[in-house]
């Protein structure tokens, strides 16, 4: 199965092409089943690989390439590199994709463009899986871009509405800004190291060959971090993710919670040896992660749109992963990536189930839904407990691991990260209280709400089970650490060291505090206390609701470049066009005039005799002799003379 791993991205690709070009479009199209079946196979294959890798039956990393194209001595390869993180990512991506495709059968039921939706979804998964398995940063980058394109297509799936159309553009352009950084990094890396093959790069790093001087490694690391910040919504490029929630909710669950946004984290993890060699870049990763985690968590506190709360939460958790990686907690960061994929996909799909039932995103119009939708409520409660770090659920294990690594690296950072964990608990329980508990605030909506069909709740329960159990299973006997670990060449190595025992107790205490605050403010059914607080701290709340004015800053930037473009256009229109286009026309005209002159007075005089004959010979010949062929031949004769003179008098 491992030898056939290249089929994992190829099968969804073929499925997406088949769905796109085959079958009939319409709300009752049967083509989606093909996508589900393809994902089912991929899930089986990746589970098989994961199982065998965990039990040590596969020798990792598995590396296999074929030449893709060669130029002179250089050969660009196309291939797969399957190491521990890749195995885990394969499983996560295929599992969430499969569940989301299943769930979408219910959620998107009756949409007139069902076939197109599934084609895009499969295409996204193919690109994402290609990114995961690729052994070559160039192919990685190509898939990275394809992932961005499919994200654009899916966010703007309901393109006739202005919101999604705007959001898709914003997402594409913002991430593109990050991609530019990634691309520059790639070029620097290629010119310095002469290869983009991950396996070769890592090999050289391991042998301690000075293939990258410190400053180059730092530059490449920072550039890749910019790319990762775009894709994984880190400060300051996170602005697209909250708006991306305009897309269908299953898409948010798949792309903007579990898989694509993890690509940036995965990029840092795949090129970890570069960061390991560049402490400055590593530090940047940690600080960017910390800021993102904190800022996003504070923004989540004031949001009322259920999906936006989850979006901010995603940003915050991604920041956590970055932070984990940045403090040499390689295993911890990727562990959190894995568990987070499960519970965040669960939360999004749960939110989708709620939205499906009440047809609104605004939590102020919900309340008391637990009675109408027990399955959704229970599973979302499990997800909330998991993300808040309730002991022995999956989130607790991974968050503990990160906090542990952070504490050993820098206790001040640990304090901030701990506070963020408290905020997480607070806003997640705020979400649960506002949505499911208390009294209904909109009776009309409440009356019409109903539990979602099994095709939607089964994925919820599956993910809920994983949110509970995956942490324990993977932590058990250090399975995950065995699969995913990084032997640092410099510094680091904190993971093995021991931290004080009270770290865990502090985390639990913070969890309790967050829960208590949420209960005090939102647990009693009346929101007056929350409102009065909102008024007392109006200035801060305004800043939070405006997302710290990052959007305004970028809009200002856009308007600036708009004005610049206008100026360029003026230059182009008035000056370049005048010189080159009109000028070219002018020259052509002048040449033509000169010809006519020559023709009229010199050639025609000679041709007139012949002309008299041909005039009677018919229209075509007439036209010929009037002007063209002899003109052509004259050009040729002139050119020939010119060349002869040049060549023979040299």
């Amino acid at each position, binding site marked *: 199965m491992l030898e056939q791993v290249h089929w994992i991205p190829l099968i969804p690709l073929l499925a997406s092409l088949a769905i796109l070009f085959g079958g009939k479009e319409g709300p009752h199209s049967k083509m989606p089943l093909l996508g589900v079946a393809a994902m089912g196979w991929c899930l089986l294959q990746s589970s098989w690989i994961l199982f065998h890798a965990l039990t040590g039956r596969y020798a990792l990393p598995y590396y296999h390439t074929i030449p893709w194209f060669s*130029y002179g001595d250089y050969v660009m390869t196309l291939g797969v590199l399957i190491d521990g993180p890749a195995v885990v990512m394969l499983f996560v991506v295929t599992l969430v994709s499969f569940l989301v495709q299943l769930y979408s059968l219910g959620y998107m039921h009756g949409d007139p463009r069902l076939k197109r939706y599934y084609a895009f979804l499969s295409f996204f998964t193919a690109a994402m899986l290609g990114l995961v398995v690729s052994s070559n940063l160039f192919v990685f980058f190509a898939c990275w871009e394809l992932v961005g394109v499919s994200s654009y297509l899916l966010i703007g799936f309901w393109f006739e509405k202005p919101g999604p159309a705007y959001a898709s553009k914003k997402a594409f352009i913002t991430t593109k800004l990050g991609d530019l950084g990634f691309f520059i990094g790639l070029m620097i890396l290629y010119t310095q190291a002469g290869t983009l093959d991950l396996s070769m790069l890592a090999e050289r790093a391991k042998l301690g060959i000075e293939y990258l001087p410190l400053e180059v490694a730092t530059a490449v690391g920072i550039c890749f971090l910019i790319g990762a910040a775009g894709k994984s919504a880190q400060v300051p490029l996170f602005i697209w993710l909250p708006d991306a929630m305009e897309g269908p909710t299953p898409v948010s669950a798949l792309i903007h919670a579990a898989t694509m946004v993890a690509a940036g984290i995965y990029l840092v993890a795949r090129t970890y040896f570069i960061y390991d060699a560049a402490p400055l870049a590593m530090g940047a990763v940690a600080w960017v992660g910390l800021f993102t985690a904190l800022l996003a968590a504070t923004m989540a506190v004031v949001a009322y749109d259920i999906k936006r709360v989850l979006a901010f939460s995603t940003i915050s958790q991604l920041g956590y992963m970055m932070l984990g990686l940045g403090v040499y907690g390689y295993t911890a960061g990727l562990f959190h990536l894995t568990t987070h994929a499960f519970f965040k996909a669960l939360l999004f799909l749960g939110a989708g189930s709620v939205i499906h039932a009440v047809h609104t995103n605004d939590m102020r119009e919900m309340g008391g839904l637990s009675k109408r939708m027990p399955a959704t409520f229970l599973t979302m409660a499990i997800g909330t407990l998991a993300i808040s770090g309730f002991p022995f659920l999956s989130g607790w294990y991974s968050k503990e691991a990160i906090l542990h690594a952070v504490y050993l690296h820098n206790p001040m950072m640990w304090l901030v990260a701990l506070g963020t964990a408290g905020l997480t608990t607070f806003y997640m329980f705020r979400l649960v209280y506002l949505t499911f508990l208390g009294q209904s605030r909109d009776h009309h909506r409440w009356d019409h709400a109903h539990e979602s069909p099994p095709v939607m709740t089964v994925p919820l329960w599956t993910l809920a089970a994983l949110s509970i159990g995956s942490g324990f299973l993977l932590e058990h006997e250090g399975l995950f650490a065995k699969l995913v670990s990084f032997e640092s060449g410099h510094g680091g190595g904190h993971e093995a060291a021991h931290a004080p025992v009270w770290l865990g107790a502090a985390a639990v205490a913070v969890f309790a505090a967050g829960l208590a605050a949420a209960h005090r403010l939102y647990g009693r059914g009346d929101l007056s206390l929350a409102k009065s607080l909102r008024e007392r701290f109006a200035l801060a709340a305004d800043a939070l609701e405006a997302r710290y004015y990052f959007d305004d800053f970028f809009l200002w930037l856009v308007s600036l470049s708009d004005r610049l473009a206008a100026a360029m256009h003026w230059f182009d229109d008035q000056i370049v066009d005048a010189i080159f286009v009109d000028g070219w026309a002018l020259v052509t005209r002048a040449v033509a005039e000169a010809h006519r002159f020559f023709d009229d007075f010199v050639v025609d005089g000679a041709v007139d005799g012949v002309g008299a004959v041909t005039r009677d010979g018919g229209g075509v010949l007439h036209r010929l002799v009037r002007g063209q*062929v002899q003109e*052509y*031949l004259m*050009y*040729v004769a002139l050119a020939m003379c010119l*060349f*002869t003179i040049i*060549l*023979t008098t040299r």
Partner: protein
Amino acid sequence: MQNLLTLAPEMGLTVLAFLVLMADVVMKGRSGRTLIYLAIVAAGLGLGLLALAYNDPAHYQGVGTLWAVDPLSLFFKVLTLGATLIVLVLTLEYRPPEEHAHPGSYAALLLFAAVGMMLLVSATDLLLIFLALELVSLSSFILVGFERGNKKSTEGAIKYYLIGAFSSAILVYGISLFYGAAGTTRLVDLPQMLGGGAQPMFVLACLLITVGFGFKISMVPFHLWVPDAYEGAPAPITAFLSVAPKIAGLAVMLRVFTFLVPHASLDLTALFSVLAILTMTVGNLTAIFQNDVKRLLAYSSIAQAGYLLIGFVTGDTLGREGLLLYSLAYLFMNIGAFAVVIVVGNEEGYSLEAYDGLGRRNFGLALVMFLFLLSLAGIPPMAGFIGKFYLFAAAIKGKFYWLAVFGVLNSVVSVYYYMRIAYHMFFREPRTLEPAPVGPALFSTLALTTIAVLLIGLYPEPFLGAVALSAQFLPLPPLP
């Protein structure tokens, strides 16, 4: 005698072409399609013979006195005969304004032209080169003017003929001067005949020969017949002319000027680089102003010849590989584009407006046309990109920086007019919503070319391997 056998594909094809011609006489112009089928079979047999020769190294003969059968010539033979075959298939579904009177002679002439090109890419003697070139030219003149009721067709044919005759005269003059200077027309004898440096007469001879070739590959400033001939000719013949004779002409130039005439005795690199730049630039800039798709693609094909000339100028292994690779890519993308032109032209004619809203009428057709246009513009991941990448990189490695700069700038310019077609296809309102019908022959051609364009672009390594094997001359025979 054994030597003669290396030309078995050419000889076989000639015999079959005569059979087609005689069948036409017997059938008196009835059931024209049967004759085209017959010609397709003949071309297929020829390709089979070539494939046999390809796989049998004992068949390679190296450079003889008159011709050379080596991987390079076989590569170009397969390319030109393949192009002929595809064009014959295209003809099946081309609907001319009036029925062709002699479909058999049409098919036979195409086959004769193919034989001419196959001889041309093998030839190592100037006289054989001339004869082969004339065979191609004479067939092409008639084919361009095949629609006798169409004034444009006749006009194009006459212009093409007049200019072609003129260029042949120049070529013959060049050859006679060459004989005067070197005492031989056999290029293999050249090194020992020539002795010391180049005399002015020899330089002039080579220059005139270059001009003669320049007409065939539509090198600026010898390109002026191209737009009229391409516009007037039946669309499949335009497809044929824009690809096959051009590639064959480049192949013979490659053999003559980078291999047989040693650089030591005559270095025309500077002249050729100027001509390459001129060819690209004039072709592209003029294409911008065209409103007839056939004329637009005619100027585009002039520009494409300019890119191909880059590989010829650098003349080293990489440049040669680039030229071969780009020829291969160009064959598929240009014929593919013309196949779409034929589909649209059958219904709506050849103006740009005929493409309005094609995306709405037949999305698949518009999509493949878009792919061909992207490939012609050299945008990844299409075949054209890989080819251009090779050519430009060869120019940089060979330190012909200006060639690379102009090549890239010209590619940018070309995007504009290629995308004009795309604009008409996708952003204009269709004048009619009737789907444009694609029959089996056109469908198979489009499928083949699309797959080839994508495959060469996405997974080029096998093609690169084949090209690298083909891009070598066999060594000259030892001096007696």
